[in-house]
C-alpha cells in the first residue's frame, strides 16, 4: 500500500517534470525557428564602416613617407592599402613594391583590412613594412 502510494505520488511528479521539460524544449527551439537565416546573414554582409590605423615602415632603400600612419576603412581589401601606398610614393604599376605585415608575411590583396587588424595589430596599429625588393619572401 505504501509502495503503491509512493508510486502514485512520484508518477504525477514525473509527468509534471516531463511537461516542464517539454515546455523548456519548446522555449529553446522557438527562437531558433523564428530566426531567419537571411536576416542573420544581413548582419554579416554589412560593411564595417569603422576605421583602423595602419602604420607604414620603409625597409632598405624604400623611400620614407612624410606621414607614416593613416586611418583606413576597415572593410577595405588589402589591395586598397597597396594602391594607397603606391599613390603616396608616386609609384607606377610597374615599379616593384612589396608589402609585409609585422616584417613577417605578405597578405593576399583580397584579404580584408579589418581581419588583418583584428589578428595582427600591435597597440591598435597594423604595422606594414614596405620595400622595393622581396624581403621575407
Amino acid at each position: 500500500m505504501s509502495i503503491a502510494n509512493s508510486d502514485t505520488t512520484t508518477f504525477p511528479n514525473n509527468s509534471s517534470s516531463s511537461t516542464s521539460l517539454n515546455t523548456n524544449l519548446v522555449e529553446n527551439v522557438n527562437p531558433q525557428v523564428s530566426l531567419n537565416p537571411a536576416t542573420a546573414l544581413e548582419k554579416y554582409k554589412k560593411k564595417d564602416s569603422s576605421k583602423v590605423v595602419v602604420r607604414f615602415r620603409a625597409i632598405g632603400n624604400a623611400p620614407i613617407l612624410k606621414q607614416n600612419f593613416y586611418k583606413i576603412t576597415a572593410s577595405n581589401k588589402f589591395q586598397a592599402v597597396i594602391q594607397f601606398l603606391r599613390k603616396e610614393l608616386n609609384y607606377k604599376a610597374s615599379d616593384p613594391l612589396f608589402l609585409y605585415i609585422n616584417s613577417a608575411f605578405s597578405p593576399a590583396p583580397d584579404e580584408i583590412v579589418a581581419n588583418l587588424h583584428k589578428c595582427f595589430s600591435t597597440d591598435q596599429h597594423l604595422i606594414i613594412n614596405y620595400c622595393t625588393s622581396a624581403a621575407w619572401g
Partner: protein
Amino acid sequence: MTAPQNPITRAIWDGTLPIKLSLDTTEAAALGAKTIIEPYFIEAPRCSYFPLLTSQLRKYFGDMMLNFIGDDAEIWYDVDGTPLKWHYPIGLLYDLHTGYRPDSNSPPPLPWSVTVHFKDFPADKLIRAQAIDATQDFFMSMIKEADFLRNGSTKKVMNLSKNDQTQLWDGLWSKNYDRFWSVNYRLVMNDGQMPRHIPLRIYLPDNCPVLQEPVSPLDDNGNPLTLGDVLHQILPELFPSSLPSENSFAAPVIHGVIPQLDMPIVRASQNLCYPDNFLHIVVLLGI
C-alpha cells in the same frame, strides 16, 4: 622521409573531385576552333590549386588546334559566371560555390562543371598573377600567416631549412604525401606547444566578407574550446548553441564533410586544416 601516420590527414590528402572543364564557347570560336571542342575531364585533388592544372589543360586544348600564345597566368576559371579565385584550394572553391550540404538527400553535383577562359582576364575580380610561381608565393605566405597566428612570429617557418621549405610546395604539386607531411607535421603540431591562436577562416553564403579572427584554443579557465564553441562565439545568430542538436539550419563544411561540433578546435586545426595550414570553414544554411 615518411610522415607520421594519420588516417585523417591521409584521407583529406587523397580526397579528389571529378571536374568537367569546358572551354567558353564564344572564346573557342575566337581562338580558331572549327569544330565543337570536347570538355576535359580531370580528377583533381581537393587540396590542390587551379593553376596546377593549367599546363595539362593548355596541352589538351592546344592539341585541339587552338591558337593561344599567351602566358599560363592569363588562363582563368569560372562557375556560372563567377570567376574562381585561383589562390583558394580547389576543395574550398567547390564547397563554397556549389553550396552542397553533405547531409542533404540529393546527390552532390558531380562532375563539377567549370568553364575555362583563355581571354579577358577579369582583373577587377581576380588577383592578376605576374607568373605561375605566384601560386607558390601565395601558398607560402598563407603558411607564414598561419604560423604568425599560432606563435606571434614566423620563427617556426623561417627556422625550417631552405630544403624543408621547398619540400612543402614540392610535396603539394607532386602529390607526395610523405614529402609534404613530414615537414608540415612539425608546423601544425607546433612542436607540442599550445598555439596562441587557431588559423581559421569562415566563409558565409551570398558574398559575405570572409571572417578571420584571433581564435584562442582554450577558454579563460584553460579548458579546450570546441569547434561548436568557436562557431557560436563568432556567429551567434547562425549557431545559437555550441551543441550539435541545437544548430539545425547552419552547418559547417570542411573538405566536403560536416565535422563533429564537439571536437576540440585545436584538434580540428591539426587534422582538418588545408595544406596552407588554415582551417577553411564553409558555413551553409538550410537543407
